[in-house]
């Protein structure tokens, strides 16, 4: 999408949450941020709105009566609908996070979140989106040069050699590849991969990045995969392709 198109056509967002207090406050905020917004209060309504509103992106709460967010997402993907989805996660974060990845959510955000952060995420996901195509988030394999990440068995290979990674480093690699070319602040990585806003943040991330770099044999001074953006965070710089 070029800048001009972005200015003239307002992206359409479908906001799905059963809590009226949330949708009634969040919808106007998203509208003011430049989106066209439709609201659905449950999973059934969400599927119906996806069909008639044709959103560019769905913000989907997980815990809802009847059809929950996870089932909606599964239903969409099964029907071959690749509309980007941002999940609002709630209980049992770590398991939910893994599910979200496996079922092809493009990003996720913990409640309660800063609404400005939601807008930033929506913009980032829309920038990456390739309309009608399978997003990286629902690919079985992520490939960057000779690095291959097999997502379901959670294994990574470089030139056919399997990498020995801790589960946390593996999740970090996966998340970074899915958000390739995006500047990822340490706080965002903590929130997304760890699910905890550690008071001690930065070092925790740095330690795992160092582990990844050692495993990938990636030179921080001349990175093929992970670049340090001084004072801001990290960026996965390799081109990433989806397979399967």
């Amino acid at each position, binding site marked *: 999408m070029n800048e001009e198109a972005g200015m003239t056509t307002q992206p359409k967002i479908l906001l799905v949450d059963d809590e009226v207090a949330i949708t009634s406050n969040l919808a106007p905020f998203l509208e003011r941020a430049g989106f066209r917004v439709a609201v659905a209060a449950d999973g059934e309504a969400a599927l119906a709105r996806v069909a008639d509103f044709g959103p560019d992106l769905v913000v989907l709460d997980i815990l809802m009566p009847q059809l929950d967010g996870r089932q909606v997402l599964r239903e969409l993907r099964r029907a071959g609908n690749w509309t980007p989805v941002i999940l609002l996660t709630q209980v049992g974060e770590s398991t939910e996070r893994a599910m979200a990845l496996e079922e092809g959510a493009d990003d996720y955000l913990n409640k309660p979140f800063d609404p400005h952060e939601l807008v930033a995420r929506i913009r980032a996901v829309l920038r990456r989106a390739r309309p009608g195509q399978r997003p990286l988030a629902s690919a079985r394999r992520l490939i960057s040069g000779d690095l291959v990440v097999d997502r379901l068995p959670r294994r990574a290979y470089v030139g056919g050699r399997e990498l020995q990674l801790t589960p946390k480093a593996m999740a970090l690699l996966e998340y970074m590849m899915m958000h390739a070319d995006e500047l990822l602040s340490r706080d965002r990585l903590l929130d997304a991969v760890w699910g905890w806003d550690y008071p*001690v943040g930065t070092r925790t991330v740095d330690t795992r990045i160092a582990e990844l770099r050692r495993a990938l044999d990636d030179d921080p001074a001349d990175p093929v995969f992970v670049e340090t953006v001084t004072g801001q965070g990290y960026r996965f710089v390799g081109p990433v392709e989806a397979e399967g």
Partner: protein
Amino acid sequence: MTLKSARLWIVALLPLVAGLAAASLLWDVEMVNNPVVAVRIDLGSAVLVAGLAVSAVLSSALGSWQAAGRRCRAQMDEARTQAAGERRRFLQRLDHELKNPLTAIRAGLANVAGDPGLAGQGETVKGIEAQVVRLSRLTSDLRKLAELEERPLERRPVDVAQLLEEAVAVARDQAPAGGRRLTLTLPQAPWPVPSVPGDWDLLFLATYNLLDNALKFSGEGDAIEVRAFEDGTFVAIEVADTGPGIPRDEIPRVWQELYRGEEARGVPGSGLGLALVRAIAERHGGRVRLRSRAGQGTVVTMRLPLR
């Protein structure tokens, strides 16, 4: 089997052994007619049977007594597990019930902040926002506690020396030591501190929380010492300070969730830091201990099993 129950079994089996020994002697003695009992039985066998009977009675009494003990212990374990489960579910529900309203309030505040008609209310909005963020942090800490007890634990060798070096470095970055003497002591002889199996992130969080407390509750001129040592079964990580210490009557309560001591009133924090430390240590099969003297300082020890 414990030493005590082994001893009881010996007592129970003693009559049988005595019976056997007596019988083996008496079998050699000439058979005597028993005028009262019609059954003819040699004295050796009679003693053996008596010994057997007494042993059987004692054994079954002991067995049922031990079974009762086991049942009682099992019931207590079950009650404990149940209580822990209920507490966890309560924390999850509380967290969940707080999350949605907080999300709505944050969105509402963002709307108010962006409304040009309310431009004069900037300071008020900021004030409310700060409090909402504080509540959000509290819910996230509650979630951590609830999650800690059930999330899968990454168990890999954690280099304790490296862990403490990093925690001290972060503490130095985050809170300028402000005239405190912060030292890290790691033994080298006869060998360096070994690693412990565990979850790096969690152990880091626990250590950092201890260090953060020491920094928060001490002042200029105070000493803070971080050290580690092992005794063959455990690695002990200690964080000690020469801060104001904790009044004696408050010490047992410092591990409780949301407890904040008199001294802590003016200090930022959620009251969940030490509860988290204890939960992390216990998930690793370890323990924590706090000793403090008012006016002298505090030392917290976290013991983690070597395997």
